[in-house]
C-alpha cells in the first residue's frame, strides 16, 4: 500500500531494490534525500547516470572500464606475458592492493557452479583462450576463490590450458597471517603443509 505521494513512493520503491536495503531503510534514505540540498541530490543523480553511460566492460579482460580497454590493459608498463584469472572485477582490486603482480588480468565474470547450472559456456573462458596466442602469454595464474566453485573452475581451466604448452599456476592455499593454528580447518592446514617451503638461512 502506498501511503506517500507518487514521486516519493517511486523513490522508495527504487531504493528498496538495492542489495541489502529493505523497505524501512529505503524509506529512511528517501527522506534523507528529500532533505538534501538540490545540488547534492543532483550530484548523486549525475554520478549514477554518468557511471551507466561511461563505464562498460573492458574488451580484452572484462574488467570494468571507461572506454574500450581498462586502465590495466592499456598500461604499457604491464607485463603482457602474464595473465591472472579472477572471478570478479572486485578481485582485481584485491590482487592489485598486494602490489605483487605486474601482469594483466582476465575476469571470468563468475565461477563454474554445477548446482546452479553454470558451466564454462556461461563464463568468459573462450575469450581467455583467444587471448593467449595473440598476446604471447607464457603463464596463466588461476586466482579464483578457494571455495568449491573456484576450485572447480581452476581445475577445469588447468585441464583446458595445460595442453596448450604454457605454464599454469594456482595461487597457494595457506594460513591467514595473524591467525591461530588451532582454528585452522583441516583442509587449509593440510594444503599449507603440502605447500611448505624451505627457509633460507638469511631470512628471505
Amino acid at each position, binding site marked *: 500500500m502506498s501511503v506517500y505521494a507518487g514521486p516519493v513512493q517511486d523513490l522508495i520503491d527504487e531504493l528498496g531494490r538495492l542489495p541489502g536495503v529493505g523497505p524501512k531503510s529505503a524509506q529512511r534514505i528517501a527522506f534523507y534525500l528529500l532533505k538534501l540540498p538540490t545540488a547534492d541530490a543532483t550530484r548523486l543523480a549525475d554520478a549514477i547516470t554518468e557511471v551507466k553511460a561511461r563505464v562498460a566492460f573492458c574488451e580484452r579482460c572484462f574488467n570494468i572500464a571507461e572506454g574500450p580497454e581498462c586502465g590495466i590493459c592499456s598500461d604499457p608498463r604491464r607485463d603482457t606475458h602474464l595473465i591472472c584469472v579472477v572471478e570478479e572485477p572486485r578481485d582485481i582490486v584485491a590482487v592489485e592492493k598486494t602490489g605483487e603482480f605486474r601482469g594483466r588480468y582476465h575476469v571470468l565474470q563468475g565461477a563454474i557452479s*554445477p548446482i*546452479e*547450472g553454470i558451466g*564454462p559456456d556461461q563464463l568468459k573462458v573462450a575469450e581467455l583462450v583467444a587471448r593467449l596466442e595473440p598476446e604471447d602469454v607464457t603463464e596463466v595464474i588461476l586466482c579464483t576463490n578457494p*571455495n*568449491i566453485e573456484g576450485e572447480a573452475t581452476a581445475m577445469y581451466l588447468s585441464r*583446458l590450458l595445460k595442453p596448450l604448452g604454457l605454464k599454469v599456476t594456482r595461487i597457494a592455499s595457506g594460513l*591467514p597471517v595473524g591467525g591461530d593454528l588451532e582454528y585452522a580447518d583441516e*583442509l587449509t592446514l593440510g594444503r599449507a603443509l603440502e605447500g611448505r617451503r624451505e627457509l633460507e638461512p638469511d631470512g628471505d
Partner: protein
Amino acid sequence: MQLYRDQGVVLRTWKLGEADRIVVLMTKGHGKVRAVAKGVRKTRSKFGSRLEPTSHIAVQLYPGRELDTVTQVDSIDHFRAIRDDLDLLARAVPLLEAVDQLALEGEPNRRLYEMLVGALRTLADEGSPLVVPGFFLKALALEGFRPVVDHCVSCGATEDLVAFDEDAGGVLCRSCRRGGAISPDALSLLQRILGGQLGSALSEPPGPASHEVEVLATRLLEHHLERRLRSVDVGLAG
C-alpha cells in the same frame, strides 16, 4: 531456545549479504536444515573450508524462525579426493542436488542421510561409475517409487524384458513394450542394484551398460521430481 547438535552433509550454499552464507545441510536427526553461517566468506572465518558442499560435518546450531544459525563446526570428512578431482566432483554434485530435492525440512530421514554419506564415501574411495545411478535408484526405492525390474509391469512376464518406461515405472516385455529400449546387460545391472547386490554392481568396470543405467536412473529421478537436475549436464567433462 536451545542450541542443538547434529551431523550432516553440506548440500549447497548461497551467498548472503557481505560475508555470510546460507548453507543447506542434510542432517542425521533433523532432516534438511537451512542455516546461516555468519562471516564464512571472510578469509579469517573460523569455519574455514568446513562449510563447503560435499563436506561431512558435525555442527552446533541455534534455532531461528526461518533459518538456524551455525555456531560451531567440526569436520568429520571433507572428501578431499572428490574436491581435488573435477570428474568426481561433477558426479558428486548431482547426488547433492537430488538429496536437496528429495529431503524435507524438519522431517528427519536418517536412511537418506546414511545413503548420501555412504555414496560420497564410495565415490571418494573407488570412483565407481554406478555410485550416482545406484544412489538415485535406491533413493527412489526409499521414496516408495521403486521401479519394477524383474517382471513386465504390464503382463507380469519374466522373460524377454526389452524396454523401460518411466511412466509405467518399470521394465516391459517385447509384446507390451513402450518407452525406451534397454539392453540385457543394463537390465542385469538394474536387477543387481535393486536386488541387494549393490556391492557387486559397483565393482563393474565402466562400459556402455553402466552408461545406460546412468542415463536411465537420471531420467527416472527427474520424472519423479518433475524437474530437471541442473547439475547433470554442465559440460565439465572435457
